[in-house]
Every structure is written in C-alpha cells, then in structure tokens.
C-alpha cells in the first residue's frame, strides 16, 4: 500500500523554473515558497492578518508540486490536521498570527509529546488579544517557548529578511525531521509584509533531511534520543497518544519513571543539540564596550544603527540570534565577551532581554517598543551613543 505517486521530476522542473527567476515578494510569500522548496506537501490553515499571504501562496503553489492545501474552520483544526498529515507521511505546516498561535498551543504540546515533525509559522502581530491586528510586534517570543503546558523544549527561528524567510524555512523543515519536533517559524508582521528581492535555490542543490524510518518492530517512542518513525500504513500498528506512553507508544500514565524518562528525553534531545541548532549572526568589533542584540525585523534598524555608529567612531558589537529557542547560550556569550553593556531593542516589553540577562555578564539594557511601530535606526543610534559615552 502506498500513497498516490509523486511526480518528482515534474516537481523539480517546476522548482527549477521558480529558482530561475528573481522574485520581488513579501516575507510571507518567501516563507511559503521556501516551504515548497523544503518539500512541504500539506498545509492546513485559517486566514489571519498578517499571515494570510502564506496560506494564499501555499494554496496557489501546492497543487503544482502535488501537495495539498486545506483551509480549516479554525486554527485548532489546522494544527490538528498538520499533525495528522505528518503521521501519514507529510512534510506539513501551518501559518498563523498571535490569536491563532494561542489557539494552537494545546496541540503544539501534543506534537512535542508525540514527537511529530511539523512547522508552525507565527507572523507575530501586536497583542494581547486582537490588539493592533494589522501591525507588527515580537510579543510571542515567550509564548513560542512556553505557550503549551508542561515541561518541553522547542525550536524557534526568527528571520530578518524576505530572503531569510525562504532560506530558513528549508532549515526549519530539516530541523523538524532531524529532531522529530514542531518547529516555530517566528516571523513578525514587519518581515511578513516586507517586499524584497528573493532568489530560490536550485532543486539540485537542495539536501533535505529526510524522515528517518524505523525498521519493523522497532519502538518509535524511545530507544534513542531521537527515535526513528513509523508512519500510518507501514503495517506496524503504531499507537500515537499525547498521554504519557512507553517506548512502544502504549499509554502508561501511572508510572512516575515512565513519565520522567519520556519527558526528560524529549527535553534532552533538543537541549543537547543546542549548538547544532544554533544559528547566530555575529559581527563583533574589537575593543567594543557596547553591543546591540536584535532579532527579526528589529535587527534591520539595529544593524543600520550599528553601522552608522561605527562610521561615527564608536566601537559597537552586533549579534543577531536567528535561532531563538533553544537559546544559543554559547554563541551569545562569545559575542558579548568583553562588552560592558548590551542593548536589546525588541518590539515587546523586554521578553528576550530577561533570557539574555541570565546568560551574559555585561549589563543588559532593554530597548522595548510597542504600539505596532518598528524601531528607527535613529532611536537605536541614540541609545548606542548614550551607552558608549
């Protein structure tokens, strides 16, 4: 028994055509095209500003590569179907924004617990609640980390340009497969709607991390840090449950050791791979006592401010975590080595600043900004000048 045949050659020709063009598209669209190049073949979603363009491009492109777009009645159904599709063999994803991301949290936990590879795009907008629906924010950084209940680790990536939306998306799908985990693609409304030049990779240059399949009889919920998977239809009678389960997938919610062993492994498989998962853009400046750490859209004016400050004679370090979770501790510490002060502009009231404070020796100065307005380079430059005086 097998799925309907995929026409790989046709798909490659189609991708080659997309790769042969230069695109001038929004971050949302680039993220969707990145997903197509990553081999995504199932998208379940529900419209929401500022993420709807991801769904629109997926609806347009998926049939061309033999994939399925399904629009659901809500975000609860979307994430559910994405997880179901993954167990049926899909590379699957959904895209939403804050309110929908809140609705998805329970099943993101289900995906963690059942070790289901999938990608969840959150194009962050200003909250809480409906907030400023059309305006950008970075207020879901901690929700991405701790939104679902219970102990868990999560992977979250934050792109800073339309090009990076495409490139990182391919990485996101690979990480989901490599660690059998949901990956949060933490965009923001600014990057989602930012229109820029995007070039897509040649299909021949793609080296996708394919799903590691278990051999017959092999347990799929234990035995190694990241166990290989059986999929539905493999004839293995796989039992998938969000309840605490043994290595063979069968429920055992009463034995403390079983729960302890399972949850510690789920945490450790990502925790221990922190360095491998870490992507950090570091631009140090010898002798600098001031540094700027920014991510997502905020990294753009921040980098501009750093370059301008350097032109004015300041010594300023710059670091941009692309991987937000697991927090790239070593790389950030290295980037902050020797700094006296670290400025952290964020489009929230200091969510990542507190995490950084736990790990670096220098003084962390949050530069929070909310209201749906991105930082200007001038604001950050003023802060650099003040901190460096």
């Amino acid at each position, binding site marked *: 028994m097998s799925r309907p045949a995929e026409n790989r050659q046709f798909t490659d020709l189609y991708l080659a055509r997309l790769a042969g063009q230069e695109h001038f598209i929004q971050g949302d669209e680039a993220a969707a095209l990145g997903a197509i190049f990553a081999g995504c073949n199932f998208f379940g979603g529900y419209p929401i500003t500022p993420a709807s363009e991801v769904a629109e491009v997926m609806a347009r492109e998926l049939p061309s590569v033999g994939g399925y777009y399904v629009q659901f009645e809500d975000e609860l159904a979307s994430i*559910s179907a994405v997880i179901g599709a993954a167990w049926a063999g899909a590379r699957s994803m959904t895209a939403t924004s804050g309110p929908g991301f809140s609705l998805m949290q329970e099943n993101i936990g289900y995906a963690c617990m059942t070790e289901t590879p999938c990608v969840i795009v959150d194009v962050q907008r200003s909250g809480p609640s409906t907030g400023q629906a059309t305006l950008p924010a970075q207020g879901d950084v901690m929700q991405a980390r701790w939104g679902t209940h219970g102990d868990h680790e999560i992977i979250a990536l934050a792109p800073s340009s339309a090009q990076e939306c495409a490139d990182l998306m391919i990485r996101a799908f690979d990480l989901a497969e490599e660690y059998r985990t949901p990956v949060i693609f933490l965009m923001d409304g600014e990057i989602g709607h930012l229109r820029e030049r995007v070039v897509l990779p040649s299909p021949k240059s793609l080296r996708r991390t394919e799903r590691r399949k278990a051999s017959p009889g092999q347990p799929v919920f234990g035995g190694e840090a990241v166990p290989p998977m059986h999929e539905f239809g493999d004839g293995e009678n796989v039992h998938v*449950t969000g309840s605490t389960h043994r290595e063979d997938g069968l429920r055992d919610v009463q034995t403390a050791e079983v729960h302890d062993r399972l949850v510690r492994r789920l945490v450790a498989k990502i925790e221990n791979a922190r360095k491998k998962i870490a992507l950090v853009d570091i631009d140090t400046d010898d002798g600098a006592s001031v540094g700027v750490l920014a991510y997502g859209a905020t990294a753009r004016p921040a980098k501009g401010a750093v370059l301008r400050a350097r032109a004015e004679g300041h010594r300023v370090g710059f670091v941009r975590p692309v991987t937000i979770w697991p927090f790239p501790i070593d790389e950030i510490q290295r980037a902050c080595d020797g700094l006296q002060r670290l400025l952290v502009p964020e489009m929230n009231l200091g969510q990542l600043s507190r995490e950084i404070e736990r790990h670096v020796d220098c003084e962390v100065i949050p530069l929070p900004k909310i209201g749906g307005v991105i930082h200007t380079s001038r604001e950050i430059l003023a802060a650099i000048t003040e901190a460096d005086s």
Partner: protein
Amino acid sequence: MTLRRLADPEFFEAFDTVEGDGGEPVLQPDYGIRDPLDGLVLDDAPAAPRTSHHRLLKYLRREVLPTTFCVGCGGGTVLNAFAHAVDEMRIDPKTIVCVTGIGCSSWIPSPYFLCDTLHTTHGRAIAFATGVKVMRPDMKVIIIAGDGDLAGIGGNHLIHAARRNLDLTVFLVNNFIYGMTGGQVSPTTPFGAKTTTTPYRNVEHPFKIADIVAAAGGSYVARWTTYHAFQLMESMQNAIDKRGFSFVEILSQCPVSFGKMTGMGDPVAQLKDLRDRSIHIDDAKDVPEDELKNRFVVGKLVEHRRAEFGDGLQELIARRREALSDELDAGLRQDTSALETGR
C-alpha cells in the same frame, strides 16, 4: 426493520469457541455476576483463572486487555460490533487508521483495536483525521469518540467535516454524559436530567446530533443504539463502505456516570429503555412530531452522493499539472540548464 440476523447462530458460537485465533488465550477477569436488582454480586472465587479465545481476538491489542470499561458499559458492544464489521468486510486492519479524542468512547479503538491509532486531544479527532485521510486516501480513516468530544468541544469540526465531505467514517458513541470526568452534563444530556453539574435538573436542550450532521451535508447518516447490535454492525459496514463523510450516532448506556444522578444505574434497564424509546425511521414517518419527543428515531437518516473532498483535491492537482506541463514542456525541457540555475 430487519432483525433477521439476531438469529444468526454463528454469532453466538463466536463468543465461546475453543478454536480461537491460534494465539495465547487471554486471561478473563472475574467480574462476578451482576443482578439487575441487587447490582454486582461476587460469587466465590473460581478455582482456576478463566481464560478465553475469541475468533475476533486477532483484531485486538492483547497486551492491553481486559478493557478498562466499567461493568455494563456500552463501549464493549461498540468494539464488538466494529470488530465484526471489519471482519465481515474482510478489511485488512493494516489499512485502517483509527483516530480518537478524549473520553471513555475514544478508548474503544485506542488502545484496544489493533491498527494504526492516533489518540488525539479533546474534540480534535476529526481534524487530525482530515490530515491523515488527505495524505492517505487509500486508507480507511475511522473516528470513534463520544458525545462530549465530537458534539461538544469538537462540534464545529464535526459539522465542517460533514460539509467538506471527505471520505471519513465517524462513530459517535452518545452516552448522554461526560463519563470519564464523572458524570457532568453534556450537549446530549436530556432536558430535565440530573447530573453532577445539573443537580437541580438540566435546563438546556440536547442536540439531536445525527440530524445536525445530516443537515450539514453528511453523505451517510444513521442512528442506532447498543441494544441494536446487529443493525449497528450492518450500519457500520455501510458507513465504512460509503464514499464521503459517513456518520453513525450510537446511543449507548452508561450505568456508572449517567446512572449516577439519573437513577438509571442498571445497564439492562438502560438498554431496555433504549429499545423501548427507539422507533425506526420508516415507522416514525406516520407519527406526529410531538409524539416523537421522547423517542429516538433509529435507522438510516440520510444517504446520498456528493462530490468527495479528497477526489476534489486530486482533480485540482491533475488540472493544475496539466496546465503547467505545457508551459514546462515549452520552456524548460529545451533548456536543460534550467535545473542548474538558481543559487
């Protein structure tokens, strides 16, 4: 209404065959004897543990037996009918994915039925199943869950799935109560019933959930009860066979949680009540509506043909690819270097 199969001797033989399925016999727990009036009466401990074979045992996960269902629960009847339906249809269980939610009824196939099983979060079984079925149209995707799960927290997914008409099969086990949490009022609890959260009687009106699914566009919709085991089994087969969204509401007894506050703690009495209140849809046609108020209309409510969602998806992919292939032929096939371009 046909009751012909009640006399099928093979069915009764199946319960106590020494032939079995060739596997190890399963240790049968000693539940004692349940007296309809005195409740559970434990007889003397048997000399040796009782074991049993059953020709349908091959469809169950042996290592998790016996089931955790309360004595007198209707869940066992549903599991039995389901296993019989699969057996009679000669479906290879390896081609079935059972998707369930949270609640007693979700345990009927998970973990007991031996097939690929996705035991999901509360209310979301149909949504999960949609992802599975879209990716694997070649597999039978069957949802078994309760009234609280599918009609309560997951009600929206239910009606949208009926509207979408993907080839899913749903068996909603309606025991009129939140059983696993101890007997709280559910969206199908009868008006006026006492439950742990309606101690002064329920002042909400219950859903006729099968009617709702029929109105929402289900391709096959039926209602039966655990009393009507054979009709249920036949209806299950029709539902599994039906291309499109098919739905069987199974009214079931819950002597423990529904019985707790309603005074209907005796499963036999509850089954008889289900029998006495049931009226076949053919017979109900001539009965004035107000006389059907406290009756359960059983039988096939709806069966029709509508375009199936999975076929629609395949068709649009084919259409898109056909349109593209001309373009790709014209442009790319001449220029083989196209595959090398890009970054």
